[in-house]
């Protein structure tokens, strides 16, 4: 009887949630309607759901506001699959992107092999952009995949480049996001391009705290960490040089709806891109991630330190 009552309650809850899904329609679509009625002059800036993307989106927003452009913030949307849809249906107009990752997502079957340098990636990217969108000038700042080891591991096996892993990889465990198992810019590429097969692959998170802590604890020997991670400097980690350019360029680039673009907007954003470097991005990102400062404060500091406001 008790079990049956629980079952009935569960079934009821399920029905309710299903009904709620049906009634809600597309939550992003309704947003675009209200956006349209608010007037066309406002630019809606979106971001992905990680700290660096939000910081960049805030920098873009403040740079636009300084030029008198009205800005609506729609941050922390989610993964690329989600925010690209939001961009295409007009819920957002602009967001910071990474040229290589965006190319991999848009190009059928992942990024074309052999394309890894910034300009090549940009050229390929422009061919596959969704209709009605464009990219502005890309910055020198890159946040790319790396294979990183601790100083201790590097000394022990004498590691400087990814090639150096080849003789010892059979004894080493690698940790990265689960997608690495199947990506060319992951285990597949390491095997095909460098001839490296690791002893074990541990699916963790994409350059996040799990991976970093596992590396520091010695649970994994090699980690996929992003190049703008301040832990590389603070924990004295060694980034192995990618001599064969397995990892694509990941220059930060504004992706914008053509409708929302005009000379004022592109001028403000291109000025930001001109000042962004991997070093200063790492430095300002650490203020958010390590010092726990407010994103808006850090963005403001970046703009004023670089003479952009």
């Amino acid at each position: 009887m008790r079990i049956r009552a629980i079952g009935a309650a569960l079934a009821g809850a399920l029905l309710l949630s299903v009904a709620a899904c049906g009634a809600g329609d597309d939550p992003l679509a309704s947003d675009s309607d209200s956006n349209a009625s608010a007037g066309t002059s406002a630019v809606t800036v979106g971001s992905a759901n990680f700290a660096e993307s939000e910081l960049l989106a805030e920098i873009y927003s403040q740079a636009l506001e300084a030029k008198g452009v009205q800005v609506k913030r729609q941050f922390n949307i989610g993964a690329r699959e989600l925010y690209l849809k939001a961009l295409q249906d007009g819920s957002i107009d602009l967001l910071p992107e990474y040229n290589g990752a965006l190319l991999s997502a848009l190009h059928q079957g992942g990024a074309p092999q052999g394309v890894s340098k910034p300009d090549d990636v940009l050229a390929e990217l422009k061919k596959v952009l969704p209709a009605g969108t464009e990219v502005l000038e890309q910055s020198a700042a890159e946040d790319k995949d790396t294979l990183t080891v601790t100083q201790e591991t590097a000394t022990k096996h004498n590691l400087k480049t990814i090639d150096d892993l080849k003789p010892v990889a059979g004894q080493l465990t690698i940790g990265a996001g689960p997608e690495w198992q199947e990506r060319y810019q992951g285990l597949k590429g390491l095997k095909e391009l460098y001839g490296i097969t690791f002893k074990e692959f541990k699916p963790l998170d994409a350059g996040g705290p799990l991976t970093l802590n596992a590396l520091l604890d010695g649970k994994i020997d090699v980690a996929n960490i992003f190049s703008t991670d301040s832990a590389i400097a603070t924990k004295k980690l060694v980034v192995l040089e990618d001599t064969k350019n397995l990892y694509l360029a990941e220059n930060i680039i504004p992706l914008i709806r053509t409708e929302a673009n005009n000379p004022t907007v592109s001028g403000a954003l291109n000025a930001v891109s001109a000042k962004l470097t991997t070093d200063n991005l790492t430095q300002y990102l650490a203020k958010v991630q390590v010092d726990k400062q407010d994103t808006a404060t850090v963005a403001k500091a970046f703009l004023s330190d670089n003479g952009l406001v």
Partner: protein
Amino acid sequence: MNLSYLLDPAHWDPSVSGSFPQLLLSHLWYVFLALLIGTVIALPIGLYIGHTGKGSFIAINAGNAGRSLPTLGLLMLMVTLLGLGLLPVLIALTVLVVPPILTSTYAGMRTLDRRVVDAAKGMGMRPWQVLTRVELPMALPVLMGGFRSAALQVVATATVAAAVGLGGLGRLLIDGLAVNDYSRVLAGAIVVAVLAVVLDLFLALVQRWVVSPGVSGRF
């Protein structure tokens, strides 16, 4: 949505790493360990509280507090404290398993007809005999209900092990989401759901077998 991942025979080959049989086995292993540890912890405490009536607030409040802890959050906390491995996963899952078993053991003991206990005492049974021959057998239907609900919860929740680099059916969900392969996510969800139903049916049979016909009314 399509079932291609689920129906691909290559994914059912037990010798391939990451195939359904392998994931199922590791999943069941986590479930078994969590249920075992949870039962070892919760059953004696529940029996003691139910038998003596002392500390019933513990049974009730610990049960409620345990249920309100989000397993994924607890798991991440444990991973931060203990590092990666099986231990943090088992702790998080055990915390999920203990409340239903503890509460149902206590409830089963307290809701049985106290006159039967009095009669047993009147017949000269010692406290231990009263517990093992009268109270426990009579509490078993409710206790098994709690155990089954714990088993169902843990089968579904053991998928979190994949979030911290372990195996189990959660791999299908986490990896599928990571590479945008919804056919795989769907396959994982279906296998977990079917496993939960099969496990519950199995435990229903166990319940039928362990509960005395005199208690369940099946002569």
